């Protein structure tokens, strides 16, 4: 009996200390959906001799990816997703990685990268704009880590424009409160503009946001506003209209038949008393009819 116990203990020591023991157990647990148990074996595998096997990191990535998807129900704050990414990243750095493991790891890692983009979209829809931006930045950095040559400019422009539109929507709903959303919108639109200064939407959005702010200042003046204050506000509005003008002009050059842009241009010139400008916009509008 004592001999039998010794053999049993020796067998356990072997299975925990050598060969593919942890991975095998992890794989077994993983295959029946016991992801948390599988993760415990996998955590042991990466501090054992199995850590030099690319499959160890692939499996760990899969396991934590499954925890994120099934246990944490794809929660954006799940640490499991980060652990999965770290595992796939480790796999990518291994010089002797199995090419099939590497391909599978890359595919899974890119899926997780895209999940950050999906989180960002959900955050936008829930008006959690800073969180949306954070998730989007995470998506960008992961995507570029995997495919450094990938051009994400268009996607960035569209996303920042969407963030800007959402921010200005919130500002318009609650103004004059929540003025921080006006600043946020402007900063998002400028991010788009700084990526491509010839982007029509970025130019139009920046132009319109300045213009509307000027109009808001005029319309929000109380009846009892004295002349000194009226002139003071007028200075601010003129500054905003003049800021708006080059953006609207550029948007018009990029989209010369767009009537909405022409109306905006006309509105600006009207506000700053540029009669010639108003006349030119009127002529252009007439030609577009």
């Amino acid at each position, binding site marked *: 009996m004592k001999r039998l116990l010794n053999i049993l203990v020796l067998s356990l020591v072997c299975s925990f200390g050598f060969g593919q023991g942890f991975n095998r157990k992890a794989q077994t647990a993983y295959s029946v959906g016991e992801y948390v148990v599988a993760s415990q074996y996998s955590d042991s595998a990466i501090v054992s001799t199995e850590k030099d096997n690319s499959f160890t990191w692939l499996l760990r990535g899969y396991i934590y990816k499954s925890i994120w998807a099934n246990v944490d129900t794809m929660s954006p704050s799940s640490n499991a997703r980060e652990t999965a990414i770290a595992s796939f990243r480790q796999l990518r750095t291994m010089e002797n990685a199995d090419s099939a493991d590497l391909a599978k790891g890359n595919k899974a890692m890119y899926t997780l990268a895209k999940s950050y983009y999906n989180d960002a979209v959900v955050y936008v829809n829930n008006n959690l704009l800073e969180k949306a931006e954070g998730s989007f930045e995470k998506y960008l950095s992961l995507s570029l880590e995997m495919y450094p040559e990938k051009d994400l400019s268009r996607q960035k422009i569209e996303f920042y424009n969407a963030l800007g539109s959402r921010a200005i929507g919130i500002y318009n709903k609650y103004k004059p409160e929540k003025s921080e959303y006006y600043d946020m919108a402007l900063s998002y639109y400028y991010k788009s503009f700084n990526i491509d200064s010839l982007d029509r939407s970025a130019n139009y959005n920046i132009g319109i946001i300045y213009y509307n702010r000027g109009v808001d200042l*005029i*319309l929000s*003046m109380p*009846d009892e*506003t*004295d*002349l*000194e204050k*009226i*002139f003071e506000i*007028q*200075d601010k509005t*003129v500054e905003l*209209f*003049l800021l708006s003008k080059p953006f609207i002009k550029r948007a018009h050059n990029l989209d010369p038949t767009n009537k909405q842009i022409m109306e905006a241009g006309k509105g600006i010139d009207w506000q*700053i*008393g*540029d009669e010639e400008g108003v006349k030119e916009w009127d002529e252009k509008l007439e030609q577009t009819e």
Partner: protein
Amino acid sequence: MFVFRFASLIDWPSNYKSGSFVIGVYGDKNVYDLLVKDHGNKTVGAQSLKVKLFNSSSEIERCHILYIDKSKAAEVKDLASKYKSQASLIVSDRSEGLKNGAMINFLFQNNRIQFEISKTNATKSKLVLNSQLAGYAVKVE
């Protein structure tokens, strides 16, 4: 905004201080719409505000303030002469308004709306312009 603000910076004769306070707009529906939208249900002192739009000079009735759009600038002289005996504040826009009899004339300078005033023309119509107006006018006659 300026047009409505002028209402509290002018002293009208006592026979103009009862009934509605009338601002007439001649020739610019946009200005009329803005005045109605922003100030339509307001009062000037104890008088309720009434904004009227006139499309032709024959439609013009007695007003406390008559705003004449720049598209009707050529008619300022005739209108000022016609209503000289009434205490109507005639406000013109970017014409030689004061020379033609208006009491206040708007003009654009450095992209900003400014105004000039004529105390002489105001006095002829028994209107007293508040000194604050002179303080902000680019020109005082």
